[in-house]
């Protein structure tokens, strides 16, 4: 594919009533509020511009986009002048041409004339505009004072800032303000002394810059340039694909020169990210070529033996022979598989299909078991669908955001920027989190209420909020009567109204001041469109499902469902958590969350797969490990997961893996789990394969092969090879055929195909005959289950206790520069921001209790040994502490 060219309309799209004007003699109709610059571009006329771009509000500083308007004096900037009915505009006149050339002459008089050796040569708007205005000479010479000798800031690992090439158009500053919301950049001084600076005139690396790259993307010159472009040269072709990191699901143009990836540029038409990205998605893809990546298969008879590199044929044959031997010796129930939330829908589907169809067991599970199965259970129980209710765009209509157990600026930074934008526009924020996450107070954003609850008391806080809403008469009775089971509501209302659930009564357990909780509950119930956004702080807990249902109860009771701006929104941790769950990865469900005991559903799959399906649930990951320790579970195929590092109770995971006779690891690197592996099958990165991911808003998006798999095979092909060697034939040819099979077997995916995705860019399931282009907001008229179900959510205190031996409770947290257990991001330049894991600990925690052991090489914990760097006295509540989720 050639370069994916995007039209820059100059200013953002407006949404007013249609207005007709005349531009260069042609009638143009656009929405009221549209700038003349944009209207002209929509009509096919490119007015020269430098400071304007359609991702930013108009600024009017460069004075290139001047136009003449009949009946109006002067030459106004077309970017800041809105259209008006009957307006007659001229974009090309001798007067305008002279003015534009004069402006450009001044710009160029203070700009290095090194185009031939400049990294931006051929992709420079300043160069383009010089041509567009017909600049033929610069009369001022270059002898006078200029900025061309200023030093270049190369401190950031991914881009340079060369002030000599800066035209101070402020696009970078405005991108940081408007798009990213960090406000790290500014224009220092004024007039000729004006220059762009990061924070307080610091290097980019040591400033508040979060390296999202929005400034680099916005820069019209070579002032901000990717180091990869400087090193490799301008890209010459591109593929649009989907990021492999968090659950936001940003789409990018992967731009290449030859076979080499040069840069990832967020795709403006991406419906999840709208042209924005974070430091991971835009820059942290170097792990694909990291020296530690394993590219050849390996086997060993015992985990005490060294690995032996073998051919693909030998590795697959060995794994198949071992699985067949174990089946014959111990029975098929001794075998299982783990799918990955990092792999594609198609790959995940194949793993569960192979285990179910070849072995006749349902021992399949996914890492989403740990992080988001409570969402599946809780929301299916309450609403009838195991997924969030909204799309990301819904936040634009939100008046009150409740963020609980999530740290969006670190974990889901691109969506966090959308949230901050809405908050700057006036929406209110409630944060329920033990930590003072960045959203609590960040430039131009401050939470109305921060409820710093004790870890493990989510349910108590949510029930106390319900108590306030019910006892103060703040329920939306009309919504509840129309949309929910009234008897169940009354039962629930009686439950939450009990005195023991009042904020005062709960305060001792939760640590949240009753007055603050009351105020937050009132705001959520009465502040307009209220939306919950939650993360792993809610779900990764023994009461995770209960907490999700408690959130659903609050949303139903206040009528905050079934329209834009409201809802219950899980922020999925990994890129394909939603998809992995959709694809039948759980041991009790087939695709589309249909229970394995349903005979009609099983019959559908049995006919398609040509194999009987066990009607009983299989083992979940912890149960597989239990069964292994007990000697009943002997072989496992693990695709793209490092369960030894990511699952709870490390000792138990290690004991379970050690007890197995054949552990097949299918991954990019020799991870911690591979210490217990017998077969290592090299995996492919998201850049090297075709498929789809489904993001947190149920959006199905294409993953396209940008470069060939360095290991030789895409992951779905490896599973296919394994299945064929096991005697269960698969021959798909392309993931599109796998998706066709998924669509044929799954009602919520019935309309999905690669053709549709290529045509529409993406769709949100359900996508079927009733909703051929997908469903952005669910439960519009009625809940999928019929009437919304109120569930009693009794708070049960956690069994996790502190004591003399183990004086701290640890809970993990997200870090902006790192992802999951760090397998990918630790192998990129992102380590410059996170050289080692740091334990956050409250400054009043007695040093004698924990600090001495919590420095250097690690300290003992009840379920394993934690390795972490020096303690950092920030953020956390007293009595507990936060290592990052990457901690080993």
């Amino acid at each position, binding site marked *: 594919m050639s370069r994916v060219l995007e039209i820059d309309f100059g200013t953002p799209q407006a949404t007013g009533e249609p207005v007709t004007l005349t531009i260069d003699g042609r009638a143009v109709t656009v929405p009221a509020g549209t700038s003349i610059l944009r209207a002209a571009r929509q009509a096919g006329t490119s007015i020269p511009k430098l400071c304007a771009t359609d991702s930013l509000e108009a600024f009017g500083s460069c004075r290139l986009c001047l136009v003449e308007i009949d009946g109006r004096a002067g030459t106004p900037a077309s970017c800041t002048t809105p259209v008006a009915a009957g307006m007659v505009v001229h974009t090309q006149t001798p007067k305008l041409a002279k003015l534009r050339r004069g402006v450009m002459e001044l710009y160029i008089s203070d700009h290095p004339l090194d185009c031939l050796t400049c990294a931006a040569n051929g992709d420079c708007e300043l160069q383009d505009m010089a041509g567009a205005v017909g600049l033929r000479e610069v009369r001022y010479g270059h002898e006078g004072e200029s900025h061309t000798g200023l030093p270049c800031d190369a401190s950031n690992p991914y881009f340079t800032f060369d002030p000599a090439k800066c035209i101070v158009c402020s696009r970078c500053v405005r991108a940081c303000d408007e798009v990213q919301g960090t406000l790290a950049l500014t224009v220092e001084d004024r007039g000729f002394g004006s220059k762009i600076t990061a924070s307080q005139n610091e290097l980019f690396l040591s400033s508040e810059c979060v390296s999202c790259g929005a400034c680099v993307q916005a820069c019209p010159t070579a002032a901000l340039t990717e180091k990869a472009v400087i090193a490799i040269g301008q890209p010459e072709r591109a593929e649009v694909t989907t990021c492999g990191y968090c659950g936001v699901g940003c789409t990018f143009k992967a731009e290449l020169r030859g076979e080499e990836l040069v840069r990832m540029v967020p795709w403006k038409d991406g419906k999840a990210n709208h042209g924005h990205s974070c430091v991971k998605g835009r820059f942290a893809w170097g792990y694909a070529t990291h020296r530690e990546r394993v590219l050849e298969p390996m086997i060993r008879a015992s985990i005490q033996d060294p690995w032996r590199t073998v051919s693909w044929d030998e590795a697959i044959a060995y794994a198949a022979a071992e699985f067949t031997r174990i089946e014959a010796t111990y029975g098929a129930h001794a075998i299982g598989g783990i799918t990955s939330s990092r792999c594609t829908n198609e790959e995940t589907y194949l793993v569960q299909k192979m285990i179910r169809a070849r072995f006749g067991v349902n021992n399949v599970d996914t890492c989403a078991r740990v992080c988001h199965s409570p969402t599946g259970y809780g929301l299916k129980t309450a609403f009838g669908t195991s997924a969030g209710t909204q799309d990301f765009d819904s936040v634009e209509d939100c008046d009150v955001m409740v963020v609980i157990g999530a740290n969006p600026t670190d974990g889901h930074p691109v969506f966090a920027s959308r949230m901050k934008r809405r908050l700057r526009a006036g929406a209110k924020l409630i944060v329920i989190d033990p930590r003072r996450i960045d959203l609590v107070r960040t430039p131009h954003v401050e939470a109305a209420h921060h409820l710093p609850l004790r870890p493990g008391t989510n349910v108590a806080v949510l029930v106390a909020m319900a108590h306030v809403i019910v006892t103060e008469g703040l329920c939306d009775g009309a919504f509840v009567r129309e949309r929910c089971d009234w008897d169940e509501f009354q039962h629930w209302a009686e439950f939450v109204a009990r005195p023991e659930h009042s904020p005062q009564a709960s305060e001792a357990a939760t640590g949240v001041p009753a007055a603050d909780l009351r105020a937050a509950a009132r705001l959520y119930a009465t502040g307009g469109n209220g939306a919950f956004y939650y993360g792993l702080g809610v779900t990764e807990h023994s009461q995770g499902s*209960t907490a999700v249902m408690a959130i659903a109860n609050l949303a139903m009771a206040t009528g905050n469902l079934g329209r834009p701006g409201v809802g219950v929104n899980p922020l999925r941790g990994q890129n394909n958590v939603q998809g992995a769950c959709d694809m039948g990865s759980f041991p009790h469900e087939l695709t589309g969350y249909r229970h394995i*005991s349903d005979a009609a559903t099983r019959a559908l799959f049995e006919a398609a797969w040509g194999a009987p399906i066990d009607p009983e*649930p*299989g083992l979940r990951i912890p149960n597989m490990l239990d069964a292994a320790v007990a000697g009943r579970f002997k072989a496992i195929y693990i695709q793209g997961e490092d369960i030894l590092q990511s699952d709870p109770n490390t000792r138990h995971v290690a004991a379970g893996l050690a007890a197995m006779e054949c552990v097949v690891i299918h991954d990019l690197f020799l991870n911690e789990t591979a210490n217990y592996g017998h077969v290592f099958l090299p995996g492919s990165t998201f850049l090297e394969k075709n498929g789809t991911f489904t993001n947190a808003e149920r959006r199905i998006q294409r993953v396209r092969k940008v470069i060939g798999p360095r290991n030789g095979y895409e992951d779905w092909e490896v599973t296919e090879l394994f299945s064929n060697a096991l005697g269960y034939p698969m021959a798909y040819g392309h993931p599109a055929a796998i998706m066709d099979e998924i669509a044929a077997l799954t009602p919520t995916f019935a309309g999905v195909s690669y053709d549709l995705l290529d045509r529409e860019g993406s769709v949100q399931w359900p996508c079927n005959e009733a909703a051929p282009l997908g469903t952005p907001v669910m439960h519009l008229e009625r809940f999928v289950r019929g009437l919304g179900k109120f569930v009693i959510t*009794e708070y*049960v205190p956690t069994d996790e206790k502190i004591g003399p031996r183990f004086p701290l409770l640890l809970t993990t947290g997200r870090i902006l520069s790192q992802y999951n257990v760090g397998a990918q991001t630790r192998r990129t330049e992102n380590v410059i921001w996170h050289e080692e894991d740091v334990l956050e600990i409250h400054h009043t925690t007695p040093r004698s209790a924990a600090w001495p052991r919590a420095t250097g090489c690690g300290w003992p914990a009840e379920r394993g040994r934690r390795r972490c760097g020096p303690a950092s006295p920030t953020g956390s509540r007293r009595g507990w502490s936060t290592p990052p989720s990457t901690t080993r």
Partner: protein
Amino acid sequence: MTRPERLIYMANQIAKFFAAQAGDPAEGVAGHLRSFWDPQMRAELVAWNAAGGDGLDPISAEAVGRLA
């Protein structure tokens, strides 16, 4: 017989949830175990319950009894 400590713990956790719900809590627990637990896990708990069910709380014990 080895005491199925983990299964007892899980069953009792599930029972705590259903104890608060309307209707028959033991049937809620039994239904949950049928829907989400592997048959071998259920069988282990059934056997333990038949042998006295030490550690199972009353709702769990009644639910497990219905699985037999």
